């Protein structure tokens, strides 16, 4: 079977699996699977957005959690102000309406991505890794210092957002909303990387000098890629805040960025659909190992090193390539 066919089969199979999962969970009476897989869908969204950066833009960002955190905090802060009927900064009313808050979370995350990206993209290589890391830590400490919004303890939402025609408090409804957004983002990303934009982006990633010689401003393309990635992560943050009904500075911590990066690599760098597989495997591995031993990280660490050293294309690559 050729690689392309395998890929199609794998993606279609995965899509079918995710669509049928709630019924399967209901049939086997394992309702917790729905919320576990909702988590997987949301982390997948964040991981796919990071894959756009790393796999296509060549931008090794170790601060992607910042955007997840921003999305989450925007959602939680608007909820808080709506709940307490106290306008934000005295003028902006809070809101629990998903159609309002979620786009806002995306826009704020994108705005921060623009700021951080414009500064960080002045550098490259090792500098870029450490600068994105440092900016994310800066926002982490900012969140810790937000006494009004819980500081270190984080902020609880008392319910999920309202979405017209859906009951988000219902886990199955919420699951399909997450599945919809993941599919949408995958579709957009897939179109994007196959477009002229994607070609230039990959060109700029592999040789910015050549792209420059062609008269193209490569850094601008990378910045746009960084912003789109940040926006996707912001949406994931808004969904995550809704799923757990809680946000904390932990969302922005650099270990979160690291975990997202692990999911991308585990699934397959630059494959878009791979990170979904990576997120699923990582979270399921965590869940399973944690069942047998509280010291599961002692096994996860070496597994990670082995994957890095020997399975360069990740699981998606292993499944779709033959050699």
């Amino acid at each position, binding site marked *: 079977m050729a690689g392309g066919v395998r890929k199609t089969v794998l993606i279609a199979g995965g899509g079918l699996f995710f669509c049928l999962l709630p019924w399967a969970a209901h049939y086997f009476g394992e309702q917790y699977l729905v919320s576990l897989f909702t988590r997987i869908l949301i982390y997948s969204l964040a991981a796919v957005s990071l894959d756009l950066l790393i796999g296509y833009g060549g931008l090794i960002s170790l601060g992607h959690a910042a955007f997840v955190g921003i999305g989450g905090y925007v959602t939680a802060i608007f909820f808080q102000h709506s709940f307490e009927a106290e306008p934000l900064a005295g003028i902006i009313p809070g809101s629990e309406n998903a159609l309002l808050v979620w786009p806002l979370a995306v826009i704020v995350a994108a705005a921060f991505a623009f700021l951080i990206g414009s500064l960080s993209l002045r550098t490259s290589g090792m500098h870029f*890794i450490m600068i994105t*890391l440092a900016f994310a830590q800066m926002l982490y400490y900012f969140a810790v210092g937000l006494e009004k919004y819980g500081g270190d303890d984080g902020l609880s939402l008392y319910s999920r957002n309202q979405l017209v025609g859906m009951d988000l408090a219902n886990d199955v409804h919420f699951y399909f909303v997450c599945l919809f957004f993941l599919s949408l983002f995958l579709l957009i990303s897939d179109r994007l990387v196959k477009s002229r934009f994607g070609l230039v982006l990959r060109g700029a990633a592999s040789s910015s000098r050549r792209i420059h010689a062609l008269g193209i401003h490569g850094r601008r393309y990378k910045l746009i890629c960084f912003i789109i990635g940040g926006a996707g992560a912001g949406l994931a943050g808004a969904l995550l805040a809704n799923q757990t009904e809680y946000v904390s500075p932990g969302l922005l911590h650099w270990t979160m960025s690291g975990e997202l990066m692990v999911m991308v*690599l585990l699934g397959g760098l630059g494959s878009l659909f791979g990170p979904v597989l990576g997120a699923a495997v990582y979270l399921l591995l965590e869940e399973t190992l944690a069942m047998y031993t509280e010291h599961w990280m002692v096994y996860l660490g070496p597994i990670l090193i082995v994957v890095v050293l020997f399975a360069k294309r990740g699981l998606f690559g292993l499944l779709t390539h033959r050699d």
Partner: protein
Amino acid sequence: MILLVEQLLNGLQLGITLFLMSAGLTLVFGIMQVINLAHGSFYMIGAYVGATVAAATGSFILALAGALGAAGVAGMAVEILVLRQLYKRDHLDQVLATFGLIFFFNEMTRIIWGKQPLFMDIPTWLKGNIELLPGLIYPVYRLAVIVVGAVVALLLWYLFSRTRLGMQIRAGASNRDMVSALGVNIKLLYTLVFGLGTLLAGLAGVMAGPIFAVESGMGESILILTFVVIVIGGIGSVRGAVVGALLVGLVDTLGRAFLPTLFRTFLSSSYADSVGASLASMSIYIVMAAVLIWKPRGLFPSHH
């Protein structure tokens, strides 16, 4: 005035700890072109082994020796087993593999030493305070940390610019293949440099033991500060590490000490405290962003 001098000394002491961390890391970055997230783990290993030896024998000197040995040997083992495979890989692989190492080391310390933090006593001969200036009383131990750091900085300078080994290391940084062709065992050299870096991290860890709690994950908070130091100073530059470490140590300490007071002059006190504290913890990142806008490759970029 007394308070300012005291805070300056505290800043200097944090700067020295950061220098010990960043000297090793910047060498590894500069010479081997490897990004090592697990550098904080050797700081942690130094602190744990130091605290354990000190508790068992009661001798601080033995604790110091044990910590340095453990961190150095662990570092060389990691270089041979993992890092060596990564020199030719891209930065992403290095980030992920060393991220895996952090998982491993953090959890290992939890298995060996448990979840409770360890506490390490200041040795009796370094206990007490000393009056540096009339009215300025400062703990002897913290002063000793500053002195040790300064001595190590001098030794490093001597090693790099005045010895044969230092010459080989500098040559290895600019052209690995040429040095190898001239008959230097470059593999051994890399292992030694890496071991030296982790040994310094272990020294920083054991000296921090009596000041902070020794606990799993303690390496990560200092690791991020170390990265900021290196980015400010310029990757691969030991001179940059000195300047960056002192700058970060001073800005962080002085910001925490004085920003809340400063804000209290024009804001209500509870609001001033929270704004001041949160701005203080962000201050070094703001300094870093400013340096980068001005000089994207750091204050002392190394040439290659």
